């Protein structure tokens, strides 16, 4: 526009130079003002990256097989929620999704997404891969949300200053379950542990919980994974005979607690044990961050929105991912900025609180950036209870009766 005026002025000759100059200056100013106005009405975009595992986890029951978009669907719903809010604040949220093969290094993927202007990464990867991703992002001030890995060590000896955890830890899950079993006075546990590493870690957390809350493990048995298919045509006949054999001759117990994250045997336990006892842990009464049946505290609305978008029920991983994306949206709204460091600082500060349909605000443990949260106890049909249970007191937050607390932490954020 400015150029056009210059040309017109030249054409008309030198005597009109001064007036043309004035007009040019006025027009230039107008253009500048207009640009500034346009820039203000142009929404600010906050870009989020999602890195998930390429492989699908397996499960004993068809009902428990994770959907292909498990996790990332939660992010998408949260972005819808953020964008509805963003409409009023001139903020926009976008998502780029990438998948990485198990055991490979995600460093390049992180850097590639960072080159696209992404500063926030929602990550559903095993512990080792998550640590590599976090390392890759250190130089560039990238912020990571661990939504999938429940390993305590990621919040303890291997904690990182640029990783927020929305997934609960094994110890939080075990403590949530133990509090309820103790409330029920089912204090004599028969512990059955799978033969994989993750199963052993969950068993450690259960043993710690039993010690903390006054339950007794009367005996521990290991269920060896001897391989074999989970889906066979006549499997049921054998399982009906095998499980009573495996559980017979145990000392008197109130409840059978199973640690089977690898989905090898736990789902076969209920109704098949030698003694008629309830099952908890990896089957039966399961501690988790979210469940398809949860409808309290306004959760019904979130479940409805999720169902409308994806025609399926919302899983715990979906919820952990939703929480991460909502945290970014909530902080961006509060600081009225898309600046990643301002958003990250707000999340770590005392003002931050997330409303996540669990009956109370969720906040971050400042010593290891773990999201405090109630633990649901679900039986697959309904929510049986929500921990912390009444009477388990804490001087700061009752949510800190779940998991490793500040005085015991090994985390030094760096």
């Amino acid at each position, binding site marked *: 526009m400015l150029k056009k005026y210059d040309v017109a002025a030249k054409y008309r000759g030198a005597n009109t130079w001064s007036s043309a100059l004035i007009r040019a200056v006025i027009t230039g100013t107008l253009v500048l003002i207009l640009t500034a106005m346009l820039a203000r009405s142009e929404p600010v975009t906050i870009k989020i990256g999602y890195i998930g595992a390429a492989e699908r986890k397996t499960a004993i029951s068809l009902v428990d097989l994770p959907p292909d978009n498990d996790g990332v669907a939660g992010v998408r719903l949260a972005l819808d929620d953020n964008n509805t809010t963003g409409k*009023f604040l001139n903020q926009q949220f976008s998502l780029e999704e990438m998948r990485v093969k198990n055991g490979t290094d995600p460093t390049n993927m992180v850097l590639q997404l960072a080159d696209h202007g992404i500063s926030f990464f929602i990550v559903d990867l095993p512990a080792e891969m998550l640590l590599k991703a976090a390392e890759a992002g250190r130089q560039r001030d990238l912020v990571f949300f661990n939504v999938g890995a429940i390993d305590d060590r990621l919040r303890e000896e291997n904690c990182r200053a640029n990783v927020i955890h929305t997934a609960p830890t094994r110890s939080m899950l075990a403590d949530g379950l133990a509090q309820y079993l103790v409330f029920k006075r089912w204090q004599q546990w028969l512990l059955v542990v799978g033969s994989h590493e993750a199963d052993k870690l969950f068993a450690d957390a259960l043993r710690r919980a039993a010690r903390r809350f006054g339950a007794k493990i009367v005996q521990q048995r290991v269920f060896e994974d001897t391989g074999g298919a989970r889906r066979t045509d006549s499997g049921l006949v054998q399982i009906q005979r095998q499980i009573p054999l495996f559980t017979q001759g145990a000392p008197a117990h109130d409840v059978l607690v199973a640690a089977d994250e690898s989905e090898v045997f736990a789902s076969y336990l209920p109704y098949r044990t030698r003694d008629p006892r309830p099952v908890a842990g990896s089957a039966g009464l399961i501690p988790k961050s979210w469940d398809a049946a949860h409808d309290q505290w306004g959760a019904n609305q979130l479940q409805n929105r999720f169902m409308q978008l994806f025609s399926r029920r919302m899983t715990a991983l979906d919820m952990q991912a939703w929480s991460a994306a909502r945290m970014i949206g*909530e902080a961006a709204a509060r600081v009225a900025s898309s600046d990643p460091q301002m958003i990250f600082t707000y999340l770590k500060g005392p003002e931050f609180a997330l409303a996540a349909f669990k009956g109370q605000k969720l906040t971050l443990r400042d010593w290891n950036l773990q999201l405090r949260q109630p633990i649901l106890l679900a039986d697959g049909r309904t929510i049986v209870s929500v921990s912390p249970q009444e009477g388990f007191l804490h001087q700061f937050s009752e949510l800190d009766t779940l998991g490793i607390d500040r005085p015991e932490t090994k985390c030094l954020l760096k």
Partner: protein
Amino acid sequence: MWRYIILLWICLPVVLASEAKAYKAYVSNEKSNTISVIDTTERKVVGTIKVGQRPRGIALTKDQKYVLVAVGDDDTIQMIDTAAHKIVDTLPSGPDPELFTDDPSGRILYVANENDNTVTIIDIERRARIGDVEVGVEPEGMGLSPDGKILVNTSETTNMAHFIDTATRQIVANILVDARPRFAQFKDDGSELWVSSEIGGTVSIIDPIKHLVKHKINFTVPGMRQEAIQPVGIAITHDGKTGFVALGPANRIAVIDATTHQVQKFLLVGQRVWHMAFTPDEKYLLTTNGVSNDVSVIDVSALKVIDTIQVGELPWGIAISQR
């Protein structure tokens, strides 16, 4: 003869007084799917009306002919005839209506629909939906300025109070408040808007002209964990001097000096207290206590809980007749 006249003069004030106080309180029982009708003088349940599924928001029409109740799981608002205590009609809200408010003329109803991010505008007489306004995620609280010009809706997940011009039906301001805002209440003189944040644990005092949060009320109950303090219902006296805030699972009503915004006192009521309503003479304030299935009666001048009335399961909303 004189004896009778004297007797009449003695009795008359008693008769008048008891008649003037015979208000009816209507309590929506979220789980029972009923409305409990309470005689506020006798402090007794005198009737129970069966309604649709999950009744929550409840109010009387300005002419006192109908009790309106939002039955969220049936996606509608039912109209109960106050004389016959029967459902006579429905109003076309959007999906999952929760709270609503009517305009000063009593002809227009503004409804928050939790499930589709809209506020629905209904012509009560024609029973017709005449407009929608798009707001934030999970609209809930509804407050109307005393002159009827500004409608305020709070959205629970967006965490805002949306100011809507009722003439143009356009949003004129969005004010961020603390997490999960549930209720909006103007002072009678329109000078302040109070918004409660259930998860944030605060009440924001908003200047409705400047569109600014000018003060935030925090609550500290000795010996109670901070997460249990979850403000929901708000009631402010007509003179604008005293405010009452229901604190949910903290099982208390906070009494606020509405001029200085300082918490004066906590009144212990039933469990998970939701909402409140004054009797028209403002002598009593009735609260719905969700988990303990009862209604507490507060003597407003003495600031004391004087009675408890058993109602249906999970009482939520309450409305009291004006005559």
